[in-house]
């Protein structure tokens, strides 16, 4: 009996042993869970053989030229990911080819909305790409909110939209271009830099002309506000009809008011510059909006030479990329020239300042999928919290603002190459700003 009693364990010992076993089991479980457990892949998920992207854009009608010039990146980015084996979707643990369903809205905003909803509810696409132009994107943004589709907008820049994004009213819309208030700051900073470097009179009298459309009104007002605050002498602030071709009378006014620094907020610089050259009006600084930044257009159908446009600065808040300074971008720019040749039919099909930004914005969307899968809430969250590797280096979206990029600039200028050089901000520039703008070459 006593031997038996000696061999027996006490109740306390038993409890200790049990607790130790439980602790060991728990630790082993945690270690296994953390380091060795691999969840079953694809279990409980619907069968899938591809990732489908939905695109509605204006393939015909008035906006189709813009789609052709500014949206080839939709197809390119899909082709490039497919060439690498497709898009990796973590919940399935494998790559899937990317396909797309594309509809033509015929430049009809109502049709665009109907077709976008069809892509979401009938075609049940996994991802969406944005339509072309600020008005169309802004209109579609309510659908993105309703159905919770994170969308990267390329050709879109609206102060009103940006403010909604900042307030969290538009959670699923991400802009690649800077909003007008950001452009205002950039232009002011550049002019202050020029004033600081070349003397108090370097900027001289400032004239701001803008077209009577959302882009012109918002950008001109933002730039005016910034310049007025720091005491630049604005001698002319005037609007003109949207897409007017006749600038001679307005140029006479600019000459009369002795405008040294001219800012054109609109898409009409292509007509303005021709008229200014014919009249011999050459301001010291000329900053223009979208119109003359696409090399394939500027040196192709528009017939300008590099000498004609040298010194013209491009704002539009499109963070330009230093295509000439970085190997990845250099290669991308050369590929661009080959791929876009079919669009422009000439040898100048180099990227425009925001081209790489457009492409990298789409890369972010795909990289977010590769990181968090096809859950759109997770994609949305990843876009605002994560930095993704793109051709512009690390890139992250900021709701209501231009994205953060390693290689992003903000203002660019035509200098000595068939691609614009980044001149601002200083840490991103590929060349020093040319000041004053050179005189027009002889015809």
């Amino acid at each position, binding site marked *: 009996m006593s031997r038996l009693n000696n061999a027996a364990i006490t109740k306390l010992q038993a409890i200790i042993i049990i607790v130790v076993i439980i602790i060991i089991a728990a630790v082993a479980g945690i270690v296994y869970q953390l380091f060795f457990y691999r969840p079953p892949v694809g279990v409980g998920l619907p069968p899938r053989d591809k990732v489908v992207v939905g695109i509605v854009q204006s393939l015909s009608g008035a906006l*189709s030229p813009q789609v052709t010039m500014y949206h080839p990146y939709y197809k390119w980015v899909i082709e490039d990911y497919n060439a690498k084996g497709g898009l990796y979707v973590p919940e399935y643990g494998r790559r899937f080819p990317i396909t797309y369903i594309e509809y033509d809205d015929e430049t009809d905003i109502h049709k665009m909305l109907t077709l976008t909803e069809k892509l979401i509810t009938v075609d049940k696409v996994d991802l969406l790409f944005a339509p072309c132009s600020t008005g169309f994107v802004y209109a579609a943004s309510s659908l993105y909110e309703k159905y919770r589709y994170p969308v990267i907008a390329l050709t879109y820049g609206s102060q009103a939209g940006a403010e909604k994004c900042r307030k969290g009213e538009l959670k699923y819309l991400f802009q690649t271009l800077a909003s007008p208030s950001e452009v205002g700051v950039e232009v002011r900073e550049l002019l202050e830099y020029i004033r600081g470097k070349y003397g108090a009179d370097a900027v001289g009298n400032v004239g701001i002309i803008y077209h009577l459309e959302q882009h012109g009104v918002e950008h001109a007002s933002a730039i005016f506000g910034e310049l007025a605050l720091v005491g630049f002498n604005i001698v002319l602030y005037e609007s003109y009809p949207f897409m007017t071709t006749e*600038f001679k009378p307005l140029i006479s006014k600019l000459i009369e008011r002795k405008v040294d620094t001219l800012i054109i907020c609109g898409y009409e610089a292509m007509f303005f510059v021709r008229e200014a050259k014919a009249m011999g009006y050459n301001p010291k600084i000329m900053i223009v909006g979208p119109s003359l930044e696409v090399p394939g257009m500027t040196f192709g*159908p528009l017939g300008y030479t590099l000498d004609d446009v040298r010194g013209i600065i491009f704002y539009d808040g499109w963070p330009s990329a230093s295509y000439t300074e970085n190997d990845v971008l250099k290669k991308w720019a050369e590929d661009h020239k080959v791929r876009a040749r079919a669009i422009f039919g000439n040898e100048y099909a180099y990227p425009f300042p925001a081209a790489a930004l457009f492409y990298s914005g789409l890369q972010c969307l795909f990289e977010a999928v590769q990181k968090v899968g096809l859950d759109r809430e997770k994609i949305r969250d990843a876009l605002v919290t994560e930095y993704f590797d793109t051709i512009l280096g690390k890139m992250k979206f900021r709701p209501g603002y231009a994205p953060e990029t390693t290689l992003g600039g903000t203002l660019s200028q035509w200098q000595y190459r068939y691609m614009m050089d980044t001149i601002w901000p200083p840490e991103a520039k590929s060349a020093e700003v040319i000041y004053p703008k050179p005189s027009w070459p002889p015809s």
Partner: protein
Amino acid sequence: MLDIAIGGVLFGALYALIAVGLNLQYGVTRILNLAYGEILLIGSYITYIFFKDFRINPLLTLIFSGLVTSVLGILIHVITFRRLVLSAASAEELEFRSLFVCFGLILLIQNLLAHIFGVTPIGTPYLMEGVEIFGERFKMNTVVAAILSAVVNAIMYTLLRFTKFGLAMRATAEEPVGAQIIGINILKIHIASFSVGCLTAALAGSMISMIYSNVTPYTGTIYTVIALIILVLGGRGSFIGSIVGGLIIGCAYYAMIRVRASLADPVIYILLIIMLLVRPRGLFGRQ
């Protein structure tokens, strides 16, 4: 002031060139050719092709664009409008039914151009240098366009005023039934006026390709609207009206850009509304 006066006249002359063809077509045939701007674009594209692919001087391409579109005008009339002219019970019915044909033509031409040339803007920038007139500098191509407009309008005037053919055209425009009674083949006159209208549209289109260099398959409507405004202002079917209307609109627009650019478009439409209220038949229109 001098720059506004000269610039306005140059600009107005281009507008007159744009409008003269539509006014002739409508005046003689009562067909309001809403596809006029698209036919004008065909002229732009012809100039573009001949310049780009064959390196022919853009001014010489005016001959080709004129010839091609005048033949096209005949074809369009024979294939589409002829049947309407023959079957319509009244001029009003013809006008109404032809509008639908024109909508179809607009879509057809736009899509054909987009299919053949793509939608990327094209242009034939030419004579962009400045030229001095009374101390003011203007683009050479706008001066050339104004000269072309003057020449075309002078030829048209001579044709309408001093030839039998012109007399037959005027007779058809003013009194189609009477014209038929005295033996004028109004169908032939319709075809001819349609063809001449397309020819002048193409000349305008070729010049526009040189001046603005931003032509797409979808920019035609702008020119149709300009021509319609001038037609209403100058008077439907009035040759002189299209010249005067073009000059008024051109000068008013040009002057407003100088005075207050944002009011340029509204002023044009106010002029149009006033004309429709005060003198609906236009400055030189028939009752």
